[in-house]
């Protein structure tokens, strides 16, 4: 960097000291073709310029500026997650070894539109506990009528607007909608699309519907007369 300044007719040339001169402290100052060395620089602007032109500082700042983009992609794109427990047997964790967990690909972009199909495997917040996230299969969507299983109080139920019915694949070892009822669609975080680990079961998550227990609602969901005002 060279700075040429005109001051009362004489030329002052400021240049940053290059490393080959052997000394990094200060500036070489040319005044009337004679060389001076300024060791302490009080020019704040110059120091800031030097600071931001430093290669390491620039690298750190540029990397830091991409962190929000990375967080955005993880939040609204694709993430991986591991699945614990036996409630989704045989789709996930088919052998009951507690040390082995399936690693799956979570499609969080699918949760933006809130459009799901019967048979999708989704992750959602446990309604009873906001700290826990569970993976279940959507059995019925809004408007459908579902024949419930024993722990639930009623024999069959019409799913209200904005809710869905989720169940684990292993019905007997699963805490699902049969215990806590239909869940709001807003609780769903992501769709489970791929099994990544173990490699032997690498592939798409199978899509299983239960047509025998669900009577599908074919009308317009918006006409379900349930609390559709503010």
């Amino acid at each position: 960097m060279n700075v040429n300044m005109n001051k009362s007719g004489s030329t002052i040339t400021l240049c940053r000291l290059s490393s080959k001169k052997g000394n990094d402290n200060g500036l070489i100052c040319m005044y009337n073709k004679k060389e001076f060395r300024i060791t302490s620089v009080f020019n704040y602007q110059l120091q800031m310029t030097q600071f931001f032109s430093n290669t390491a500082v620039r690298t750190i700042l540029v990397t830091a500026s991409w962190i929000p983009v990375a967080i955005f992609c993880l939040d609204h794109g694709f993430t991986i997650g591991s699945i614990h427990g036996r409630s989704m047997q045989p789709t996930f964790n088919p052998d009951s070894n507690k040390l082995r967990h399936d690693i799956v690909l979570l499609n969080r972009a699918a949760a933006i539109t809130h459009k799901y199909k019967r048979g999708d495997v989704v992750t959602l917040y446990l309604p009873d506990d906001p700290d826990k996230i569970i993976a279940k299969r959507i059995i019925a969507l809004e408007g459908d009528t579902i024949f419930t299983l024993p722990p639930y109080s009623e024999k069959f139920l019409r799913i209200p607007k904005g809710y869905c019915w989720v169940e684990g694949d292993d019905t007997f070892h699963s805490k699902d909608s049969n215990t806590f009822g239909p869940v709001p669609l807003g609780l769903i975080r992501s769709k489970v699309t791929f099994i990544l680990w173990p490699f032997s079961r690498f592939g798409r998550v199978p899509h299983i519907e239960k047509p025998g227990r669900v009577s599908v609602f074919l009308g317009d969901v918006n006409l379900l007369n349930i609390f559709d005002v503010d």
Partner: protein
Amino acid sequence: MRFYFRYVNPILRTVSTALRVICAVHITNEYFIEITQCMGPSMLPTFNVVGDFVALEHFSPRLRRLEIGDVIVCKSPTNPWRSVCKRIVGMPGDRICIDPTAIHRKFITVPPGHVWIQGDNMSNSTDSRSYGPIPYALIGGKVFARVWPNPCWIKNGLITLEEN
């Protein structure tokens, strides 16, 4: 090569800067502080019908620090697209009278992990009285200030009655 440095490179730089700025703003809105519009008659004495701009913070719901009397913004359980602004009236374990004006009063205990929310304008508000207690995970943020009109802090509305 000259074409690249003259035309393509500046465009790429602008696009990448815009991407980073937009993502930073989005992350700020999602994790820290956000300004939104709160419409509808359900919070009438506190907020206007036509839509007040309110500031909400996302720290309290994440740290589980919400209390009775806080004004919150949450996803509507009946419509995942819509956010509603209500006041917390009951926390898990509280026993709540659904309609105090009814002859036969019904009481409900708020289940664990849920909150009971109600609008300030009780006669014109769709809230927990119609759809029941809502899961805590639906809560998006806590309203702490009104930005426009009449800027002011929104304080906890719970008043302790002194015992005589």
